[in-house]
């Protein structure tokens, strides 16, 4: 089976500062990959390279067997992205924001699709509300609704559940898992919500100082580190990571 996402020997540096060092991994249909690491490990840089927003110093990213650099537009039509750190224009209504993105992704029958995602993410009553009136949690749900608008095959999420209350956090996690199981959606996500991540991810990538510490199945890594939950694994793997350790 051809991997959905292939990352070959990625390096990224800004002058002498090295942010990613020899990062390679593959992701298959229906996989949910959690990327974990301390602040400044290079997680977000990696996501941005996967989206083509940052150019790697060397290495290559392929989706569906095709190079991102050469077929960016075609590929990104099948890729969704949401981040807790990137907002949508506050001066537009929820519906207007979704309409803009429906056109960007050339979504067919977009009015119906907008209603569907608003229903899914429990924002139907906010359709005409200006985004500046949304709470942090609602904004994140809108971001997720936007990311699902074009029914992507691959979804990249940066801290998707940050700002959500526990009830919504669980619902979103369950929704993502269901999408991966039923629709074969492949997901790459960074998160500090380790307990939620443990419930949905089937693969993990541990990154520190821009270098991969470990990559593999959840159970496989639990065995490797001799732990039985993700929190323990995190502390065992990154026990040397101090607050000042941020070269990425």
């Amino acid at each position, binding site marked *: 089976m051809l991997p959905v996402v292939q990352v070959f020997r990625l390096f990224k540096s*800004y002058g002498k500062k090295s942010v990613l060092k020899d990062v390679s991994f593959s992701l298959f249909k229906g996989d949910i990959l959690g990327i974990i690491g301390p602040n400044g490990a290079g997680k977000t*840089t990696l996501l*941005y390279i996967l*989206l*083509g*927003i*940052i*150019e790697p110093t060397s290495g290559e990213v392929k989706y569906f067997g095709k190079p991102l650099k050469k077929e*960016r*537009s*075609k590929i*990104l*039509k099948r890729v969704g*992205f949401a*981040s807790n750190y*990137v*907002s*949508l*224009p*506050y*001066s*537009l*209504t929820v519906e*207007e924001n979704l*309409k*803009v*993105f*429906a*056109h*960007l*992704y*050339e979504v067919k029958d977009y009015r119906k699709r907008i209603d569907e995602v608003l229903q899914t993410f429990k924002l139907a009553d906010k359709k005409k509300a*200006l985004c500046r009136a949304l709470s942090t949690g609602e904004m994140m749900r809108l971001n997720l609704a*936007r990311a699902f608008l074009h029914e992507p095959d691959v979804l990249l999420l940066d801290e998707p559940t940050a700002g959500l209350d526990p009830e919504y956090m669980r619902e979103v996690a369950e929704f993502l898992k269901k999408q991966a199981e039923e629709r074969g959606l492949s997901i790459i996500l960074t998160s500090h919500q380790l307990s939620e991540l443990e419930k949905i991810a089937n693969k993990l990538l541990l990154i520190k100082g821009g270098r991969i510490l470990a990559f593999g199945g959840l159970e496989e890594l639990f065995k490797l580190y001799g732990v039985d939950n993700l929190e323990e694994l995190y502390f065992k793997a990154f026990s040397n990571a101090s607050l000042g350790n941020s070269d990425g």
Partner: protein
Amino acid sequence: MVSFRRILAILLRHLYLLKHSVSRWIDLLYWPTIDLLLWGFVSLYIQQREGSGIVYHFLGALILWNILIRAQQGLAVGFLEDVWARNLLHLFASPLTLLDYVLGLLFFSILKAAVASLLMGCLGVLIFDFNFFAQGLALFNLTFALLLFAWSVGLITIALVLYFGQEAEIFAWALALLFLPFSAVFYPVSVLPPLFQEIAKFVPTSYVFEGMRMVFQAKDVPLLFLFKAYLLILVYLILSVFIFSYSFKLSKVQGKLTKVGE
């Protein structure tokens, strides 16, 4: 490949913003109105004293200069709106191409220039008995040249913001004004000091406004004159496209595209 729907998306994004923003409507309608009234009455006063046809020259120049400013800002401020909204990441994480994005902003800038010039044109007829639009094809040629020049200045502004960060946003308002003294908007090139006249030879807008005065004096604009204006604009456009593309590419290499607006 260019996509009509993606261009429409960018256009819609800015139209929706305009729809909800009183301050942006004021910027679009209030300033051109005040400009026209102020300069219109000043030139009427001068005309009463001097007895020349200066009022038409002033009003025509003012409308054309406003077209340039609106078109340039439509592009540059349109980009800044996405910087301020921290929306660039979402846009460029989508299938949107750089060409789609720029074309979307260009259409928006045409709309802004059209609204401002239509408003000023109508006020000119109603208050000063001056019909800007009656000048026909000759004026259209000059207006189109101005639009192209405005876009080249707009592209350079975006490139500066991408390279230097948000600190450079002042150029969205200041850069076009740099050309104002050499453009001979309200006076002929001949009144400029010799050094400024030499500089004006390399500023395409000086040909446009000299041409405008010829049109208002019912003279034909010489073809060579128009040719020089368009040739210079072509050089500015090629340079600005190159600088803009390079700056965008560099912002991806240096990771600045993810940081601009933070």
